[in-house]
């Protein structure tokens, strides 16, 4: 399809993915890890570093474009973008590259994420730096961590819809079961049981240890080119069928309880855009990679993206629905809960593997995959197809 006439639909494709090992502690710094992931993704695509002319990443990324471009030997860059709101920006990196390439602003784009949260500092432990808004309204009362903020919404969600901790466990278990199949996952050899979940320590009630993502060191990257160029690449192209960013009206960030309707988060408006520009509907999605910094985000996203009705996210998880062979297998690499928490970028790469047919927990014949970014903050999503 000619650039500009049909929007983003299938105009670009993911042709390379790369990653470093994931671990609680890696010896190299974030910049070196970023370079390794990016070069691995380019090698996977069969594209020389000198051909890269576009970069995209998201905020809280320590390696900047200048450092990455000179270290890896890129050509002249004609497009670079950094998406706001941390984990909400993961899918938007690919969306920005797809838009730039479709508009003719660049031809070979690389998106990446490098983090050392396993061994490095956590932002919420910093007592001296408090953003004036909204922290002045929450931090003095001891609502300190992202887990506390999401737990507040979770308690209300459980109360309003009759969902239970067993529903949250279903999410944690599906992710863990997939990680147990994925040798790259941090939790590859660590099965989870209901008893372990129910007796684990609390972090912020109603969220326990296993409702929280892993703290991880690691980096990932992917390569985006035009659909036309993709035909000549080493790998089977995975098309960017639809993409969305969303900062909904009267959104407040992690503290969505200041919104009139706190339990409809950014997923809802992202979904409206995503489906509007798609030939597919939720029932056509074979597998989903849903941002899982915390288990309840998956329930909220299942509702927001239209896999079930409002308030039905908990019930949707019953009967193994999220497992391989279930209604909607999710987070087939193990997700942020059990593979690695690298601000959701591992979900993008796993989406690509599913549509190449090369996942360690392959959904047979998968041809459409939803990938989402952080729910609870201004977010983004991708609908990928083979």
């Amino acid at each position, binding site marked *: 399809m000619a650039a500009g006439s049909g929007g983003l639909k299938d105009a670009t494709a993911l042709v390379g993915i790369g990653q470093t090992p994931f671990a609680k502690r890696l010896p190299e710094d974030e910049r070196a890890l970023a370079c390794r992931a990016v070069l691995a993704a380019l090698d996977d695509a069969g594209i020389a570093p000198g051909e890269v002319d576009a970069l995209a990443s998201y905020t809280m990324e320590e390696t900047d474009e200048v450092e990455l471009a000179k270290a890896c030997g890129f050509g002249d860059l004609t497009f670079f973008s950094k998406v706001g709101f941390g984990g909400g920006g993961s899918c938007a990196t690919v969306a920005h590259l797809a838009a730039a390439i479709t508009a003719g602003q660049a031809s070979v784009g690389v998106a990446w994420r490098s983090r050392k949260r396993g061994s490095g500092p956590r932002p919420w432990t910093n007592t001296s730096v408090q953003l004036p*808004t909204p922290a002045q*309204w929450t*931090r003095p009362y001891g609502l*300190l961590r992202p887990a506390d903020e999401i737990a*507040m919404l979770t308690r209300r969600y459980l109360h309003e819809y009759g969902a239970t901790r067993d529903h949250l466990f279903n999410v944690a278990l599906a992710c863990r079961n997939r990680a147990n199949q994925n040798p790259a996952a941090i939790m590859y050899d660590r099965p989870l049981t209901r008893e372990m979940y129910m007796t684990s320590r609390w972090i912020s*009630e109603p969220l326990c240890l296993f409702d929280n993502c892993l703290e991880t060191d690691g980096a990932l990257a992917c390569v985006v080119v035009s659909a036309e160029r993709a035909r000549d690449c080493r790998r089977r192209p995975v098309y960017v069928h639809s993409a969305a960013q969303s900062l909904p009206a009267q959104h407040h960030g992690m503290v969505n309880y200041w919104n009139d309707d706190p339990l409809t988060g950014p997923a809802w408006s992202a979904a409206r855009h995503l489906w509007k520009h798609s030939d597919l509907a939720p029932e056509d999605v074979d597998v989903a990679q849903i941002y899982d910094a915390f288990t309840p985000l998956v329930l909220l996203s299942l509702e927001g993206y239209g896999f079930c009705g409002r308030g039905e996210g908990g019930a949707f998880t019953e009967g193994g629905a999220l497992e391989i062979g279930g209604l909607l297998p999710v987070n087939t690499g193990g997700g942020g809960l059990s593979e690695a928490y690298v601000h959701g970028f591992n979900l993008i790469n796993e989406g690509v593997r599913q549509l190449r047919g090369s996942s360690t927990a392959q959904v047979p014949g998968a041809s459409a995959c939803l990938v989402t970014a952080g729910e609870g903050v201004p977010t983004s999503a991708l609908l990928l197809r083979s």
Partner: protein
Amino acid sequence: MLRPVTDADGAPFWEYAAQGELRVQACAGCDEFRFPPRPCCPHCQSFESEWRPVSGRGRVWSYVVAHPPLLPDYAAQAPYNVVVVELDEAPRIRLVGNLVTGAGQPLGAFPPESIRIGARVRAVFHDGLPQWVPERS
């Protein structure tokens, strides 16, 4: 303990709280309450606002019970509750706070198992911060 790091929009809230008064920003153009405070009104775009006193009565909208790892001052009081209270006058205004046994009492002193969503509470003040105690029926 962390002190509120205020901005220009939020400062009046804390100034009134220091005097033991709970006030919420309201639009002088269309009368709508808004929280958190901000420079102009999302309904009518007016930049005129006033700080309107509210009764300090409300209901628990949700709550968490925080456990370590936490910052040292908070870990020392954990597990403790954090509540979101919706105000009687403006149910869509929801303030984060703590349910305490009395103004200035330790955060962990209030038994978490006795907290209920919908429970009626009223504001008390300690050290410039609004806190919440159960309202006697």
